[in-house]
């Protein structure tokens, strides 16, 4: 807003003239994303062009929600909306350019995750989310591919097309929100009044997914999602979630017993499983909040979270990822040396990863790692 122009149209033109579009990166139903750059500084940007030609009622709600939310948020773990301009019939969001996303990383079977890596992603994700909640904003669509990853490894919360403010108990909100596999039980039961706890549930699912390398609660349909959830987490009792058995629609669910979570998440520490359980608590009132989650023992105990720049990431060219080393083991393409905390005897994630890569697969079974499912 350092612009000298007063007129809205002139300010808009000035903004537009700052950027140059290059090539198309991708196309969705309502937007096209271009690679571009800031002409003066050369900074790489992504320009999300939202087409409005076929919107009967003008600017659509997801464009409004995204612009409204991102204009207010400034945080290292939230995607930066650098500028916005309109051009004839399109709305253009100038966003920071980010290389990849967490879903691609999870699905890349050539990558090995260490507990310290998962901790690092969880910490960044929760910091971004905590900032949103502090600003009284719900994301309402957390899932791995909405966490983008910068070239320096920073995880950034993105896609605010369903985001909205919360906290006004008098105003009902839709329960038809959040991608099914990450949808909290209270939403599945039709809650129209909810809080940041719905985002935390989704974060808990992502936490589990990072450990399992597969979606944790993959319900086949909206109807089955509750069953899938209850089967995995045990059907909630009245003690666990006061009031749940007295819902107007009745409570006729199969009673699944609570499984041993430590069996499923064998690669995870007790602290990790404890935090995951707190994030996936059925009762939204007692479910842990983002800022309390960040204070959890999990983030204070060893191993320390991997430095963002050292996190595993897909190589541009898969063929170049692994370079044969002289001793027959494989070495990662990027440099891990910084991660070694020399002298304190703690094996860092990066060092351990190298060791694992070098060891035969059979020997790995007892190690606390999460490997591709």
């Amino acid at each position, binding site marked *: *807003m350092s612009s000298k122009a*007063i*007129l*809205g*149209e002139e*300010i*808009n033109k000035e903004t537009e003239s700052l950027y140059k579009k290059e090539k198309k990166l991708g196309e969705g139903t309502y937007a096209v994303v271009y690679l571009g750059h800031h002409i003066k500084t050369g900074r790489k940007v992504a320009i999300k062009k939202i087409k*409005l*030609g*076929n*919107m*009967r*009622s*003008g*600017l659509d*709600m997801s464009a*409004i929600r995204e*612009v*409204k*939310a991102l*204009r*207010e948020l*400034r945080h290292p773990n939230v995607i930066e909306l650098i500028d*916005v*301009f*309109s051009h*004839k*019939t399109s*709305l253009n969001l100038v966003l920071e350019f980010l290389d990849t996303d967490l879903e691609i990383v999870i699905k890349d079977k050539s990558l090995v995750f260490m507990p310290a890596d998962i901790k690092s992603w969880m910490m960044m994700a929760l910091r971004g989310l905590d900032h949103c909640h*502090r*600003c009284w904003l719900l994301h309402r669509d957390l899932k791995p591919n909405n966490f983008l990853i910068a070239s320096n490894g920073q995880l950034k919360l993105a896609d605010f097309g369903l985001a*909205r*403010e919360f906290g*006004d108990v*008098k*105003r009902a*909100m839709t329960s038809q929100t959040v991608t099914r596999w990450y949808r909290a039980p209270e939403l599945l039961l039709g809650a129209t009044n909810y809080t940041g706890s719905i985002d935390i549930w989704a974060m808990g699912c992502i936490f589990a997914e990072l450990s399992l390398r597969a979606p944790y609660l993959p319900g086949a349909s909206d109807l089955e999602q509750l069953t899938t959830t209850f089967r995995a987490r045990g059907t909630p009792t009245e003690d666990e979630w006061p009031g749940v058995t007295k819902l107007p629609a009745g409570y006729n669910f199969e009673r699944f017993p609570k499984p041993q979570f430590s069996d499923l998440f064998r690669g995870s520490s007790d602290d990790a499983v404890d935090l995951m359980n707190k994030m996936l608590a059925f009762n939204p009132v007692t479910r842990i909040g983002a800022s309390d989650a960040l204070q959890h023992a999990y983030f204070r105990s060893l191993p320390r979270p991997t430095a963002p720049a050292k996190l595993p990431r897909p190589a541009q060219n898969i063929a170049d990822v692994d370079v044969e080393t002289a001793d027959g083991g494989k070495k990662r393409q990027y440099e891990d040396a910084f991660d070694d905390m020399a002298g304190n005897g703690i094996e860092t994630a990066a060092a351990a990863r190298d060791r694992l890569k070098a060891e035969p697969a059979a020997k790995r079974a007892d190690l606390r790692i999460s490997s591709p499912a």
Partner: protein
Amino acid sequence: MADRKPQLFEQTSQYQHWRFTPSSLAKLRAENNRLGVDRVLLGLQQEAQVDDQGASDTRIAEATDNLLTPAEELKLIGFYLQMIKFCAKVYMTSKLLKPESLNNVKATAINFMKRFYLHNVVFDYHPKNIMLTCLYLATKVENAFMKIDDFIRPLAAADAKSGSKTVTKSEDVLGLEFIVIQSLQFELAVHHPYRAAYGFYLDMQQYIEDKDRLRDVYERTAHYIDQSLHTDLVFFYQPSQIALGAFKLAAKDKDFDVDLYLTQRFDARSLELLFLALDEIQDGITGFAQATKEDARLIDRKLILCRNPEKNPNSVLYKKTVVAQGDVPYVSDSDSD
């Protein structure tokens, strides 16, 4: 206190980009008006060159005699700001707008329109049209979306009933959507005093014994908050400060004392500053004067003569240049939603 975390409100676009002092605001409006006048005169001169009917000299003379001052612009805008609440009530009556959304939609629409005219002048865009676009945009921003056809229906019906020559169409509203949103610098989140007032009401219950009378006072604050929306206070003070100012006025009406709460809640130094601000806010709210229909009619009559022909679809210049170049503003025409 230098290293304190920034307050939440201080991170908002409202705090960062839409805050003024009375003199900086007046200066901006005067400059905006001056540039607007220049554009009107330039447009008329350009029109004289393409106009083959030869009436342009009279038109320029008439426009020059009738140019609106910043104060006249404000009065005309003010009149249409007052219309927003009537329109919003119509949608509420027809169940298109939920009662619990009314305050936010109304207040956001009013705020959008006030912000819009910091970056535009009435010579270019008539407040009657901008008002509708701001209101429609506000329904979306405040999660109270309705389809454009539903939005237009009562407006078109009212036009037909009053025997107006033109009937409001969806293009009239949507065609200005980008013009409005770019003038808002795409900053759509607006904070109002209503929620702050509710927060104070909850907090006061810990300090004030007489809950029934406190509720009376709280209910009365809405009246003063409504009134505050029409003033420039939103550009000078934070929503919570305006809410407290409204509380004090409401308390006076009900012969109640909220200062007792304030003295318990704030230390002496903050109170000193707070009371100063609250006095100004109360003066601002009570000093608000409605723009009458007669005011608006007189100003509007002048405005007909001094509109910028470049932006006026009925002008000779517009027909000969803008339309001819095919550069007509965005109009939504598809059926899909």
